[in-house]
């Protein structure tokens, strides 16, 4: 704002009016019901303030009023694009609390589901990112392949979006007969066709690179200080992945890389890097899937439900369980008072921390870059607001 002190004659003080633009909660590029308050000077955004909470559904309060297994359907509804990952984190936390060990067969099934979900979630993330930048076609190509993953999920547990699949001490349904083959069919199409086509059509496009490569740069220190996790942190060049650092479900047995942003077309940690990490992660997930499928073929079928009492009462105590969800570290802090309901369930959401750095990165951008930035942080409002 021009104050009397700054109103001196000359080019610098050329007075332009600032305008408050309200972006969202119903805006096509805010990925849900995020509301941004942008203070703009022409096309340049001077400051951006995100307002969250439009999708608040009291998850944590709900969790205190239902029994331990009853929380799982609620976890699915947080990050609805990657519901498998949510319930996995909660199940791991409660299993840690009760000291339940799942069989290797169940652990392998969980890895299959988690990695399929990661591909599906990244398909949406990368596809909608292309759409934010203005390219429509890759989005539909990727959704076509996500659809096939959803078919596999539906075949396994009957649901396409909110699965209630990872139960405490097991999974709700065994894999159907022929699942391994169907999954391989999907990968045989995904690896040689969709993946190279995506890179050819979207990632390698010069306009796409120009729009994302030097935009929204989040350097390593900033990413760590704001506690970014997942692809957002790896995009900043930090090789951090719970599947490697603190393996669960037997991830230590699989060979895969942790892709990080290298800043090929600009500074490390740009929107391009974050998105590129997601693209590469799809390939790594596919590698893991091949290994798990090999393993499943050799395995004996086993009971997928551990002996867990229906009205389970974990011992008194507290536990923090975490897993690498597609959007980053998803942590559950579960406190038990020995009753049948959790005393407290606190969620550490990767999208929430990603949103917290937004105002810092958005300063001084153009409006079109704001869209590119939101898309590259890959937020799901269901998880931020819970």
């Amino acid at each position: 704002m021009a104050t009397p002190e700054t109103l001196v004659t000359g080019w610098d003080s050329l007075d332009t009016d600032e305008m408050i633009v309200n972006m969202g909660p119903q805006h096509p590029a805010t990925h849900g019901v995020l509301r941004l308050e942008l203070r703009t000077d022409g096309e340049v955004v001077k400051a951006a303030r995100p307002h969250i909470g439009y999708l608040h559904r009291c998850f944590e309060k709900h969790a205190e009023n239902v029994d331990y297994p009853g929380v799982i359907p609620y976890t699915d509804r947080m990050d609805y694009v990657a519901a498998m990952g949510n319930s996995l984190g909660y199940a791991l936390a409660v299993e840690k609390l009760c000291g339940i060990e799942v069989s290797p067969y169940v652990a392998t099934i969980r890895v299959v589901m988690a990695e399929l979900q990661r591909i599906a979630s990244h398909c949406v993330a990368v596809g909608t990112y292309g759409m934010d930048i203005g390219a429509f076609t890759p989005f539909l190509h990727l959704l076509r392949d996500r659809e096939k993953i959803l078919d596999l999920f539906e075949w396994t547990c009957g649901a396409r979006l909110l699965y209630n699949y990872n139960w405490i001490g097991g999974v709700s349904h065994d894999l159907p007969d022929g699942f391994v083959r169907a999954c391989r069919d999907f990968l045989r199409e995904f690896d040689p066709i969709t993946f190279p086509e995506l890179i050819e059509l979207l990632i390698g496009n010069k306009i796409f690179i120009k729009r994302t490569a030097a935009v929204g740069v989040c350097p390593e220190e900033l990413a760590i200080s704001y506690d970014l996790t997942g692809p957002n942190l790896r995009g900043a060049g930090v090789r951090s992945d719970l599947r490697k650092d603190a393996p669960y479900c037997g991830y230590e047995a699989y060979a895969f890389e942790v892709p990080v942003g290298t800043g090929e077309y600009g500074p490390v940690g740009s929107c391009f890097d974050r998105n590129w990490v997601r693209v590469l992660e799809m390939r790594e997930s596919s590698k893991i899937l091949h290994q798990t499928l090999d393993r499943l073929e050799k395995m004996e079928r086993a009971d997928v439900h551990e002996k867990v009492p229906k009205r389970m009462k974990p011992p008194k105590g507290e536990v923090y369980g975490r897993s690498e969800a597609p959007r980053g570290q998803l942590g559950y802090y579960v406190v038990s008072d020995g009753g049948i309901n959790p005393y407290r369930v606190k969620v550490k959401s990767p999208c929430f921390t990603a949103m917290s750095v937004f105002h810092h990165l958005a300063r001084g951008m153009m409006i079109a870059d704001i869209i590119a930035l939101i898309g590259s942080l890959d937020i799901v409002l269901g998880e931020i607001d819970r």
Partner: protein
Amino acid sequence: MDLALRLLLELAPALGRAPAWVQAALAAFVPALVCFTFVALGPIVYVYAERKIAGFMQDRLGPMRVGPYGLLQTIADSVKLLFKEAIFPRGVDRRLFLLAPLVVNVGAFLPFVVVPWGGRLQPVDLNVGVFYVIAVSSLATVGLIMAGWASNNKYSLFGAMRSAAQIVSYEIPAVMILLVPVMIVGSLSLQDIVSAQAGGLPNWFLFRFFPLMPVAFVVFFTAGLAECNRTPFDIPEAESELVAGFHTEYSGFFFAMFFMAEYTEMFVISAVTSVLFLGGYFAPLPELQTLGPVPLGWLWLLAKAWLLVFVMMWLRWTLPRLRVDQLMHVAWKVLLPVALALVVVLGGLILWPATAWGFPWDRFVGWPITLVLVFFLLKVMVRALRWSRRRAHELATIGLER
């Protein structure tokens, strides 16, 4: 008007006995009506084509429900839009709000007055045709700004400002390139420009001064894309940024009018480009100009224009969108210098014959450049072929077909 009247008299000799004012009125109204009907019904075809092409590119079917292959879908949609309530949000400037779609449409329709569909099939043969096209095609901008301002919506205002900046910038390289055919022909009349390209493919302006005119064509077409707000220059209505830009607040029939104007403008740009570079209504081979007694010229122009419209749609469903500053960068730092250089160089070439100063310029300068360009073109084509064959092979090995 003259041409139209003569054509009318030939078709209906009895008209010759009518009073002069009837003749004059008919000569004015009939072409206008034909033109208007043709142009106004065009968007129905283009919208259908756009949706089908998009569907094809995105591995889906596109409209399939209304009529066979969804052929009646656009008609159903336009009827729906006609019967929808036109909503006026609070705080709009009603007069400007209503006027804006009309102004946009006027700007889109007017250039058709001078588009030659055949030697005598042209509503009016203005001797300043090219100038007229430039003048009236910028009218649409006024309409867009009116719409953006009157909507009382910040997003609409952003869209309007963006579109104004964009169209003003891109008009300059476009006009520069327009000068080239004008320099070659020495006339501003579109009819003269087409006539100079008679005699088949090699005579089209696209293939004159070989390495240079195709560049001019690309520059003009790019600027044209920007002028009708198509991807990658669709920032005035960028749906992921500005919701729908200047027509965010419009609904019902007024919204349909913006739609109509956009598609009409696409067709205008394509038709003018065909006239300037692709030989207008002339067939690639002189033998194909008529089918027995039936002249096919108008069909050829239509085919060329539709080909360019298809290219526009193709680009739209392939490319991402540029940012505002990058858009300006392309206009001022890439297209404008190229256009200026082309005007200067081509001007020189037009003045000097190929063997000026006793030196065979064409043999020692023109041909080598041409050969190098052709070589690169072939290389690109071979690469594309290899890629597609490799993919077909991949698909075959895993037992999939597309």
